[in-house]
C-alpha cells in the first residue's frame, strides 16, 4: 500500500498550520511582543492563499490531490470549486486578521491594561481554524471531514470567549455566554455528525467518499446524509440549527463575528459540498431535507431580520437568511448545484465582509454612544459618503438588487438548479424571500440615505450635507478633542472589497 504525497497541493492547509505552530514557539521565545506574531500569522495566511491560487485555473475534472492510493482515491483533493472556496476562506481570514490587527496588537488604552498574552493565542487559533476550513472541502474521507470540521469549529469557540481584558466586566461575561451558546450547539452537532458518519460507513462499507454509489443500503445512506447535513447545518446557521447565531454574534468581538459569518460558513458549505458530491451522481433527485432547511432558513431569517434594531443582530439574522440561499441549490443533487452554492457563497462572503468592515469603521469613528445600532447610522450617506456607499453596495448585493449585479447573478445562479429540478414550491418560497430580503436590506439602506437627525450640536443639520464634507460633519458631531478617524487599514479593506464587488458586478462572472 503506497501513498502518494504531494505537499505542494496541501500547502493551503499546511501554511496556516505551520504559521500557527511557529507563532506559539515564537511566543515562547519572544514573550510580550505582539506585532511579530500578527505578521507571521498574516504571512501564513497569505502563503496559503498564494498556494491555493493555482487551483483556480484547473479545468473541469482536474484536481490537485495528495495522499492518494493507487486506486485513484485521495484523502485530499482540491478541484476548481474547492480551490475557489479555499481562496475565499483564506482571503476572508486575512481580511479578518487585518480588521482585528489593532485590537490584538495594541496594549490597550490604559498603559498595560491588556495584560494577557492574548494576541499570540488568538492569532494561532484563527490560523488553525482557517486551516481547518481550508481542509474541509478537500476532504476525501469521513475521517478527514470530521477532523477538519472540528479543527475549524473548536478554536472559534475560544475566539468568542477571549475578548479584551479592558472591556467592561459584564461585556466580557456576555462573551462567555456567546461562547457557551456556540459550544453547546457545536457539541451536539458533532454528535449528529458522528452518528451520520457511522451510518454512512454502515451503508456504504467504507469511510471513503468514492463508494457511495454502490451503497448496499440506500435508505440507510439517505438517513446518514440527513444526519450529516443536520450536523453541518449548525455551522451555516440554517433554521432550526441557528439559535446560537444571534446570541454569539452579538456577544463576540466584531472581527470574530465577521470571522464566524464568513470563513466559518465556507467550512460548512465545503462539508455540504463534499457530502452532496459523494451522493450526487444521481442527477435530478431532490434532497427534501436540504430543501426544507433552505426554505425555513430564508423565511425565518428574513422575517426576524426585518424587526432588528441593532445592525450586528440584523447581520446575524441576515446570515441565517443567506444560509438558506447557500443551501438552496444543494437541494437538487446535480453536478452544477455544488458550484452554484459555491458561487453564491463567494459573493455572500465578500458582501458580508464589506458590511462588517464598514461597521468596524463606523464603530471606530465612534461618534455615537451605540454606533452599531441602526438608529446611529441615520444619515450616514451625508456625513460619511465613502463609508455609506460601500455599505449600500454590500447590502444591495446581499439583497440582489441590480446596481449590485454580482448579487443578482448569484441569486439567479442559485435559483437555477431549483428551477431545473422543477421544485416549484421551493422556487416560490425563494421568490417570496427575494421580496422579504429587499425589505430587510432596503430598510437599512433607507436609514443610511435618510437625512441626518437634527439633534446634533454645533449646527450640523441635514441641509449642510452639501456644504460640509464628511470629515467636517464628523468633527462637528464629535465632542471637541475626541475626534476620531477611520484607520487607514479599514479604508484599504473597504476599498479592496468594494473593488471586488464592483468588479464582480461589471465583469462577466457567473458560476464557478
Amino acid at each position, binding site marked *: 500500500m503506497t501513498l502518494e504525497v504531494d505537499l505542494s497541493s496541501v500547502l493551503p492547509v499546511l501554511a496556516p498550520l505551520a504559521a500557527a505552530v511557529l507563532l506559539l514557539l515564537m511566543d515562547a521565545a519572544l514573550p510580550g511582543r505582539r506585532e511579530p506574531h500578527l505578521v507571521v500569522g498574516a504571512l501564513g495566511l497569505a502563503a496559503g492563499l498564494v498556494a491555493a491560487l493555482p487551483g483556480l485555473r484547473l479545468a473541469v475534472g482536474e484536481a490537485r490531490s495528495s495522499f492518494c492510493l493507487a486506486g485513484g482515491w485521495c*484523502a485530499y483533493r482540491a478541484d476548481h470549486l474547492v480551490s475557489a472556496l479555499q481562496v475565499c476562506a483564506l482571503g476572508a481570514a486575512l481580511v479578518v486578521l487585518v480588521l482585528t490587527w489593532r485590537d490584538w496588537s495594541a496594549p490597550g488604552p490604559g498603559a498595560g491594561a491588556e495584560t494577557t498574552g492574548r494576541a499570540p*493565542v488568538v492569532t494561532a*487559533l484563527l490560523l488553525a481554524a482557517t*486551516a481547518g476550513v481550508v481542509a474541509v472541502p478537500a476532504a476525501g474521507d469521513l475521517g*478527514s471531514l470530521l477532523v477538519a470540521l*472540528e479543527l475549524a469549529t*473548536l478554536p472559534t469557540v475560544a475566539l468568542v470567549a477571549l475578548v479584551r481584558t479592558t472591556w467592561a466586566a459584564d461585556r466580557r461575561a456576555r462573551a462567555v455566554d456567546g461562547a457557551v451558546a456556540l459550544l453547546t450547539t457545536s457539541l451536539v452537532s458533532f454528535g449528529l455528525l458522528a452518528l451520520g458518519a457511522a451510518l454512512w460507513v454502515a451503508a456504504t462499507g467504507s469511510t471513503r467518499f468514492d463508494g457511495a454509489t454502490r451503497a448496499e443500503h440506500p*435508505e440507510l445512506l439517505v438517513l446518514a446524509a440527513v444526519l450529516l447535513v443536520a450536523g453541518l447545518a449548525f455551522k451555516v446557521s440554517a433554521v432550526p440549527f441557528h439559535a446560537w447565531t444571534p446570541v454569539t454574534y452579538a456577544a463576540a468581538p466584531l472581527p470574530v463575528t465577521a470571522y464566524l459569518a464568513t470563513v466559518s460558513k465556507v467550512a460548512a458549505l465545503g462539508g455540504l459540498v463534499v457530502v452532496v458530491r459523494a451522493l450526487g451522481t444521481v442527477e435530478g433527485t431532490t434532497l427534501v431535507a436540504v430543501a426544507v432547511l433552505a426554505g425555513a432558513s430564508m423565511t425565518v431569517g428574513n422575517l426576524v431580520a426585518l424587526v432588528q434594531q441593532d445592525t450586528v443582530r440584523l447581520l446575524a439574522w441576515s446570515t441565517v437568511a443567506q444560509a438558506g440561499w447557500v443551501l438552496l441549490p444543494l437541494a437538487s443533487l446535480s453536478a452544477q448545484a455544488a458550484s452554484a452554492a459555491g458561487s453564491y457563497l463567494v459573493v455572500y462572503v465578500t458582501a458580508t465582509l464589506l458590511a462588517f468592515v464598514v461597521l468596524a469603521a463606523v464603530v471606530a469613528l465612534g461618534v455615537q454612544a451605540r454606533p452599531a445600532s441602526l438608529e446611529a447610522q441615520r444619515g450616514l450617506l451625508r456625513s460619511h459618503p465613502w463609508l455609506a456607499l460601500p455599505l449600500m453596495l454590500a447590502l444591495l448585493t446581499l439583497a440582489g438588487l441590480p446596481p449590485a449585479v454580482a448579487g443578482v447573478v448569484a441569486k439567479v445562479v442559485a435559483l437555477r438548479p431549483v428551477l431545473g429540478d422543477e421544485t416549484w414550491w421551493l422556487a416560490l418560497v425563494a421568490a417570496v424571500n427575494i421580496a422579504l430580503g429587499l425589505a430587510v436590506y432596503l430598510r437599512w439602506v433607507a436609514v443610511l440615505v435618510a437625512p441626518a437627525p437634527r439633534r446634533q450640536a454645533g449646527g450640523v443639520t441635514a441641509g449642510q450635507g452639501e456644504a460640509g464634507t464628511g470629515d467636517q460633519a464628523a468633527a462637528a458631531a464629535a465632542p471637541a478633542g475626541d475626534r476620531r478617524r477611520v484607520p487607514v487599514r479599514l479604508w484599504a479593506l473597504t476599498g479592496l472589497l468594494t473593488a471586488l464587488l464592483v468588479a464582480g458586478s461589471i465583469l462577466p462572472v457567473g458560476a464557478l
Partner: protein
Amino acid sequence: MSGLDVLFVAVGLVTAGAAALSVTSRQVLHAALWLVVALGGLAGCYLVLGAELVALVQLLVYVGAVVVLVLFALMLTRAGGVPVVTGVPQRVAAALVGAGTTVLLGGALLSAFGWGRVPIDGGGSTEVAATIFGTDVWPFELLSALLLMALVAAVAVARAPVGGQDDPSQRPDPPADVEAVQGERP
C-alpha cells in the same frame, strides 16, 4: 443464541442501564460515575465484538481522561445548588425526541442488516495501525493540530479573566500571571 450473543446481551444491558441512570440521576456526581460505568460497558461491548484496540483506547481516553476531566470540572464548579433537570414539559419532549431517535436509528439499522448472524472477522490491530499511519495519515495529522489547538485554547480560556461575578480580587491568580500561559515573562 450463541455464546457471544449472550455475552453481548449481558454487557449491553449493563451499558444501557448505566447510561439510563447517568441521564436520569439527580445527583451530579452519581451521573458522572454512571457514565464511567456506561463507557466502561461500551469498552466491554467492543471487546465482545473483537476490537481490542478500540476497547483499550475507549478505556484509556474516555474512562481515564474524559471522565476524570468531568469530575474535576464538577469539583471546580461546586455546583451543588444548581437545578439539575429542566421542567416537566421539556423532559417529556426530550423523552419523545429520544425515543424517536431510538426508533429511527434502530429501525433503519435493523431493516438494513436484519436479524441474521454473521461471523466476526474484523481486522487486527496491525491493520488498524497500518491504516492510521498509512492511508489515514492526513486526518491523523490534522488531528494532532486539533489536539494542540484545543489544549492551547482550553488553557487560554480557562485562565482568561472573564468578568461578571469573577471579581479580580477573588481570582486565584492575578492578571499579570496570565501571561505565563504562553511563556514566562520576566
